[in-house]
């Protein structure tokens, strides 16, 4: 029955169908990238450096004659894996944090939200920079930094739902029946926050893709030679006049992924949340 509803939404909403299709394609590329790519992304082809796009090298080659198309395909994995990691950590921590603050309430809630405010006083990318300053460049510090900065927002969403839910009669009933707070929080409060958590996650994913690419572009995230759209763009910037394709294709890859995800997210929220339909 749910599947039927999804199918009919896809049929009636072409924007949803196209963006969902693109997202699925990106995920498939991310998972199976190394098998799809025509070449090893780090294979150096002597004498073939800075070749423009051709039949042999669809998107051209870079400074060391590496196949840009293969590097982009394999780089998809870094873009999505990093962003998914940010979302999982962010939503996981935020949910637990928000549930505890919202369920306990009072002074604990107050202190926990103040700590959240402190984390929120950093723009996301700047927190990424701080984590790189502490732990050195790489994907992991950058992912953790971003997740921490997004966490208070997710926590707030869950917390405000939890505050509302804990005043509901069914929670009161559960309490009278002697259920443990943990059981009430997980079995009763959490399911009612779920749709908002999904919405939050869908927003953060797009931000995370952009911020991760930006940090790699600044040379602070994924380090070369591991192919990543951000660090490919940074390298391409050095030879933009000579080989503009090296910059254009990674830039388009980022834009198409983010656009597809933004449209998908917007349509998803429209279908999930009736109050958005105006």
């Amino acid at each position, binding site marked *: 029955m749910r599947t039927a509803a999804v199918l009919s939404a896809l049929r009636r909403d072409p924007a949803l169908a196209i963006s969902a299709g693109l997202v699925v394609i990106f995920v498939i590329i991310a998972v199976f990238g190394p098998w799809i790519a025509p070449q090893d992304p780090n294979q150096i082809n002597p004498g073939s450096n800075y070749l423009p796009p051709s039949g042999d090298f669809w998107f051209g080659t870079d400074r060391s004659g590496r196949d840009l198309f293969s590097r982009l395909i394999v780089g998809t994995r870094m873009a999505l894996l990093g962003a998914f990691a940010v979302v999982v950590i962010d939503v996981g921590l935020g949910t637990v944090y928000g549930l505890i603050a919202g369920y306990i309430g009072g002074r604990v809630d107050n202190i926990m939200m103040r700590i959240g405010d402190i984390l929120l*006083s950093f723009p996301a990318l*700047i927190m990424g920079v701080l984590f790189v*300053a502490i732990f050195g460049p790489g994907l992991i510090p950058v992912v953790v930094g971003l997740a921490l900065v997004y966490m208070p927002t997710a926590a707030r969403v869950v917390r405000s739902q939890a505050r509302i839910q804990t005043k509901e009669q069914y929670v009161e009933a559960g309490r009278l029946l002697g259920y443990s707070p943990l059981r009430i929080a997980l079995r009763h409060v959490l399911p009612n926050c779920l749709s908002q958590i999904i919405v939050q996650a869908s927003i953060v994913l797009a931000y995370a893709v952009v911020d991760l690419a930006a940090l790699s572009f600044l040379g602070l995230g994924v380090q070369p030679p591991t192919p990543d759209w951000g660090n490919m*763009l940074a390298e391409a910037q050095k030879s933009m006049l000579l080989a503009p394709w090296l910059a254009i294709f990674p830039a388009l890859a980022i834009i198409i992924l983010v656009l597809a995800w933004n449209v998908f997210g917007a349509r998803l929220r429209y279908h999930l949340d009736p109050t958005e339909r105006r």
Partner: protein
Amino acid sequence: MIAQRLIAFIPIIIAVSILIFLALRVVPGDPVTVLTAGSPVPAEVKEQLRREFDLDKPLTVQFWNWAKNAVQGDFGISLKTREPVTELLGETLPITLTILIGGLILSMLISVPLGVIAALRQGRLSDQLIIGATLVTLSVPVFTAGILAIIVFSFWLGWLPPFGRGEGFGWDRVSHLLMPWCVLGLAMTAAQTNTLRAGMIDVLNREYILAAEARGLSPIAVIRHGFRTAMVPVVNILGVQFGYMIVGTVLVDFVFGMGGIGQLLVDAVNQRDYPVVQAILVCIAVAFTATTLLVDIVASRLDPRYAD
């Protein structure tokens, strides 16, 4: 209400400063190795360097000294260049602010008319085109937009210089700033347009606007009536956006090689120049928090009901 917010503001600033300070102190490796670039130096020299940079004292004393000087505008000395950090900030901050303010003005010039038009023509083609366009600009990160702009406008068309900050106050300067302004401005337009549109639609359906229309006020006068209230959410979104603006300016600065705060920060992180990193991060956090506060105050002035 303002006093209350001000009181809440100060502990956050202190907490953030302590957090950044401690975070940069748990870094593996000794600042002295950064100072001496890893080359072997006699123990006395190391000892003297430690004293010079306060490293021989306990953390609490270090922080107190740093905070005391920072409040007076002295952020210590760069480990790499030995220049006062305040001087480095003085060299880079003007260009960063020029990019930021120019981008902000440009985004308002674009988003205010677009938001009002979209709201007035809600659901029609022009509205849908505007919404679609904002979704596209929202999906183009500033650094990709910057690089594509350089390829098109500098290398293919040859209209604008690709890098640098330019000289003087004439065309040379403007030609260098034009692309950074547009890239940053367009990136901020989407959220402003959407918020203003939603605010306008909300206001236009209120009774006092309907009454004004019924009295036969001209459409322009009606829009003026509603505009003030509709601006409240836009002012709010500006506060939220300030974070993206800072990040956007850092990236734009880096892409176009303007030599602003962004480049200084990235270089300092790569060279492990902690005093510089610390000063910039604290300044950004303070500016960010202060803007949030300012936005609250402005919003409550525009619409007194917002105060509670």
